[in-house]
């Protein structure tokens, strides 16, 4: 497996690019790349040439996360002012604006069926679930506070929820917190199941393997990537190699490779069979905040694509094979 640089857009945004995701292809158009930035805009990019399709405004204080509905029709973006904006990808018409004070909003993820949007709720130590039909709040999944005499002081911020991930079957939801713990929920019963321990620094990105429904990958500020069996509560592997925080990760659609983006300015490709880094891309000049594999599907697009976005304001696109 290998990555080959295809295209880089310098100054894709006016400021640091903090989030990226692929909007799946629809019947009328191929997949698009969606990016969110400190410059308060969300941009959509088309084709391998990364042509700018549209610039969405309407956020304040920087866009921290973007998500795309599996249908490819709806997009969601979250900003530091704690609003989630849901919009029509092709028209930029606002569908809904979500907020659930006092929680902030961090990572957003639609479930695989597209019926629910999960939002990492920051200091509220919970995940909020929104119905994608009515855009009403379905549930709030709180992380149980650790037993102890003083639930106040710091423990609150320790369980600060940063990241969420759906299992490929949509039955499980995992979230990562500032203190490094990962919490796993049973979605159907809206019930907390257990913690996965091992990290002691913020877990900023989580992703399930698309081929093994129990296998969960976590990226942490401790420069490690962990592989968990989320059901057995066991640590399957730990991969080190990044020199600084691992900010984001994504598993390739074939489940064979993992891509990570790090503060050390690199994008790494890991062979999951060897559990070793096979390639390091250092084309970015600042922290790499997002990496995303393009989902399969769409008209006649078979080749794999990986996109990365960085504090250096640029977007890079790679061929994955």
């Amino acid at each position, binding site marked *: 497996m290998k990555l080959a640089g295809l295209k880089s857009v310098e100054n894709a945004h006016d*400021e*640091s690019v*903090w989030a990226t995701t692929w909007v799946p292809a629809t019947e009328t158009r191929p997949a698009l790349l969606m990016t969110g930035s*400190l410059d308060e805009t969300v941009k959509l990019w088309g084709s391998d040439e990364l042509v700018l399709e549209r610039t969405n405004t309407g956020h*304040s*204080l*920087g866009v*921290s996360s973007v998500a795309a509905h599996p249908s490819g029709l709806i997009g969601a973006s979250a900003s*530091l*002012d*704690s609003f989630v904006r849901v919009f029509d990808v092709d028209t930029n018409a606002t569908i809904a604006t979500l907020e659930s*004070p*006092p929680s*902030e909003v*961090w990572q957003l993820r639609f479930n695989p069926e597209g019926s629910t949007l999960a939002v990492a709720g*920051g*200091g*509220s130590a919970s995940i909020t679930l929104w119905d994608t039909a009515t855009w009403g709040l379905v549930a709030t999944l709180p992380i149980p506070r650790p037993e102890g005499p003083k639930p*106040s*002081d710091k423990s*609150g*911020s*320790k369980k*600060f929820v*940063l990241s969420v991930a759906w299992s490929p079957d949509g039955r499980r939801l995992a979230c990562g917190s*500032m203190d*490094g713990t990962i919490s796993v929920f049973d979605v159907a019963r809206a019930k907390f199941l257990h*913690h*996965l*321990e*091992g990290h*002691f*620094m913020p877990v900023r990105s989580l992703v399930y393997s698309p081929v093994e429904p129990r296998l969960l990958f976590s990226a942490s*500020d*401790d*420069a*490690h990537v962990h592989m*968990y069996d989320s059901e057995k*509560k*066991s*640590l*399957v*592997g*730990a*991969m*080190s*190699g*990044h*020199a*600084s*925080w691992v900010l984001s990760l994504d598993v390739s659609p074939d489940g064979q490779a993992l891509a990570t983006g*790090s*503060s*050390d*300015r690199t994008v790494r490709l890991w062979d999951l069979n060897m*559990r*070793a880094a096979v390639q390091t891309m250092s084309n970015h000049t*600042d*922290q790499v905040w997002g990496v995303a594999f393009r989902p399969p599907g769409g008209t006649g697009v078979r080749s794999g694509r990986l996109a990365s976005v960085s*504090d250096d304001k640029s977007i890079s696109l790679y061929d994955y094979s």
Partner: protein
Amino acid sequence: MACVYIPVQNSEEEVRVALDMLPRDAADILDILKAEQAPLDLWLIIAREYFKQGKVEQFRQILEEGSGPEIDEYYSDVRYERIAILNALGAYYSYLGKIETKQREKEEHFILATQYYNKASRIDMHEPSTWVGKGQLLLAKGDVEQAFAAFKIVLDGDRDNVPALLGQACVEFNRGRYSESLELYKRALIVHPRCPAAVRLGIGLCRYKLGQFDKARQAFARVLQLDPENAEALVALAITDLHTNEAAGIRKGMEKMQRAFEIYPYCAMALNYLANHFFFTGQHFLVEQLTETALAVTNHGPTKAHSYYNLARSYHSKGDYEKAGLYYMASVKEINKPYEFIFPYYGLGQVQLKLGDLRSAQSNFDKVLEIYPDNCETLKALGHIYVQLGQTEKAQEFMRKATKIDPRDSQAFFELGELLISSDTGAALDAFKTARSLLKKGGQEVPIELLNNIGVLHFERGEFELAEQSFKEALGDGVWLPFIEGSEKFQEIDASASVLQYKDRQLFHRLEDSGRHVELPWNKVTPLFNLARLQEQLHNAETASILYRLILYKYPDYVDAYLRLAAIAKARNNVQLSIELVHDALKVNDKCPNALSMLGELELKNDDWVKAKETFRAASDATDGKDSYATLSLGNWNYFAAIRNEKRNPKLEATHLEKAKELYTRVLLQHPANLYAADGAGVVLAEKGHFDVSKDIFTQVQEAASGNIFVQMPDVWINLAHVYFAQGNFSLAVKMYQNCLRKFYYNTDSQILLYLARTYYEAEQWQDCKKTLLRAIHLAPSNYTLRFDAGVTLQKFSASTLQKTKKTADEVRSTIAELENAVRLFSQLSAASNLHFHGFDEKKIDTHIDYCKNVLAAAKPHLEAAIREEQQIRQRQEVARQHALAEEASRKAEEQRKFQLERRKQEDELKRVRQQEEHFQRIKEQWKSSTPGSKRRERSEIDDEEGGNSEKKKRKGGKKRKKDKSSKSRYETEEAEADMMDDQEDVEDEDANLNYREPTGQNDQDDAEENAHDPLAAAGLEDSDAEDDMAAPSSTTGRRRRAWSESDDDEPLERQPLSRENSPELRDSDEEVKDEGRRPNGLDAAEDED
């Protein structure tokens, strides 16, 4: 059968005396001789015969009788024979004296000999044989020059006098003038071709000394031909054989030597050589016997030196350094001229080196070097001594010379490398590499230490791949390989157990259970440790942890491995595990200062202040206060303690600072090059306001810290930036913070971003400030203080924009947007506050919200005004444009009309147009000047003069120090240092309150108001004015004011401790370097509890 005939007096008869049948009692013969008054030559012949038969007593008896006073009287006219007898006696005593070893007897013999010769001289002072005898005597006494004179007298009279020739030859030989000596021997041989073999021996020796070995051999061979029993010639030949340095030659030589020994067992020379031989064959017992005999039989200094040397060498090789030293010493004592026999000096040097007497050893090696300036071994030995004496440069000089002289001596390169490690790693690496390639070329195995050292040096230079290669080469094949290559799979473990992952050594047990042999030879532990360390550096913490665990599995006492594992755990913020690992290390050695220091760090991290202090104390005590790290940790502890308390206690603060300073200074006294101590001292100075000094210190530390991968000192960058900041040099401060972030933190440190934001805030770069804070929030989402700060920044930005006299509608619009953001931020904080996410006072936040909302409300008119204004301007412009068009049209019409008539008038016309345009311009200006009017109106609406003044007073009272400072630092930048100090204290205060300090200068607003205050107060007070100006909407003033001053007091967020010192990486470099060379643990945990 030889016989003599003693003539019988007064008859023709003779007494026949068979010389081989001389009576035992010499008195019988003497009777006959006396009775028959035999000629004196007969006396001499008979005496000589006795002598030849070894009957020395009889010989002496006859001659003494023959030289008695009676004889003198009776034979008074027989001069020659009398002289001959005296000379014979003289020669005899000379000989006795020569062979006598006891000094007193020796001298007695010589005195007797001298007496006889003198007596002979009295009979005839021109008799050559007497002079020859005297010469021999002087020679025996070692009085070479006088002997020379004696022989010369003889030779002047008869240049062919053989004995004199021989004597003189001997003299010349002893004077080292071998060619002259050779000439003399030759002449003797020409004059007397059938002279004894000994003459040829002399020739041989001369030739030998002259380096004509073949001719020497011929001469010795000839001697042996003539006299097969001549031991000396045998020895000489044997020596030449030995010196051929070929096995066959040596064997032949030894055979001859043995024969010489059999012929004459008391030849010291032969004994020495034999001893020498047996030394090499390792038969020390024989060596001792032979040399002891040799010592007993000879008196000859050089030979004795040789014997002692042999003996010393024998003991030396047996490891009995004391005895060896004594004998070397004895040997050296026998040597007058070191150049003749230098080996004992070398041996003595070696033994003294071994026994630790460096100075003496050095002087002995120096002597060797004088004679053999190019002797590698000596150069190396001296190099070693200088290392141990701490004179590294000299040591290097010697080692370099050694390597230059013998560029194939891998050992010398290795040692040179070790020497250079501390001073010049590049050169050291080159030396090691040369040693390695020499060894490889020679097909020898490269020692593990050498490879390890090469690896370490590459490591230090940041050449990680080369370092890895080298360590792997040192390690070779082993159980570690699959782990290094990653082919060994990670063992699945329970996630909750993974917390203690770095303590787990089960996997090795499992490996052994599965039949694999887990082996780790002791000499590979160090390279393995270093490799693990390298993996850590390459961020392969997992691999590193397995290797460390492997070391611990086999060597559970290896403290450094525990510490490294603890460091890895700490880097991953697994404090609990880290502490456990450190405790494991302490179980091995509860006094280990490194472990204690690290424990202290961890306790500090756990906010366990008292415990941490005790631990640091213990670490310091464990090393008698000599461990810089422990001392520095204590210093840091004090520093932290000084700035820790939010409500500062000035007294306590001063005590802690003083203590910190003392500790830093102590370290600096021990290690003047300790960067961390210097940094600490700089920090304390800066805290006290000596910015210029501290800046110098920081700059130097920063320079010194660059270029070593093990010294990472981001703190000093931050400190420098803080100093720039405190001195108002914002752009430099920004640069410094940014560089620090990029260089050391991959831009991930939100704290530095906060510093940066703070600087932008001061510099009034609102957008930069906002972006910076947003980045910081993004990095540290759970830090609500950052959100608060962002809100404050937006608020401040809006307020200042609204105060601008000129602003566009867009500006006002964006201001309003930012105000709305601020309100949102504050509201969120407010909503979150009841969930106890953060420690803010709800009321305070509410105050901010109210304020922002008020400003927001106040901004609406601004916006309307701005829009109105813009519209007006647009309208005017439109009117003006149309006016101009009309003008133009009429002018053109006029022109056309008048064109043909009055061309000359055209210029006047133009002038008029110009005037009209100027007029138009004036109108425009008038329009513009109406704008401030509206602004003023605006303000008067919101300004509450009364409130402003009372606020002023209050602040003047409560915050006087602060005001003083801000005015001073702004207006009196060239103040002397003394003032700086005062200022600085205030800076601290102010740092805590920075939020609300209004940068002066820009807000020149109400002239009257500004003039009302004296210049000193103005700057500071103005600041409150400004606040009041915008903050003054109405009745809530009082409450708000209270809230504000409160927030002034305990605002935690913008507090910027002037400097932040990370002790973690404190491990002093000096110590580290020191360890590197000898102990191959170059990279031990020691240096980096980071």
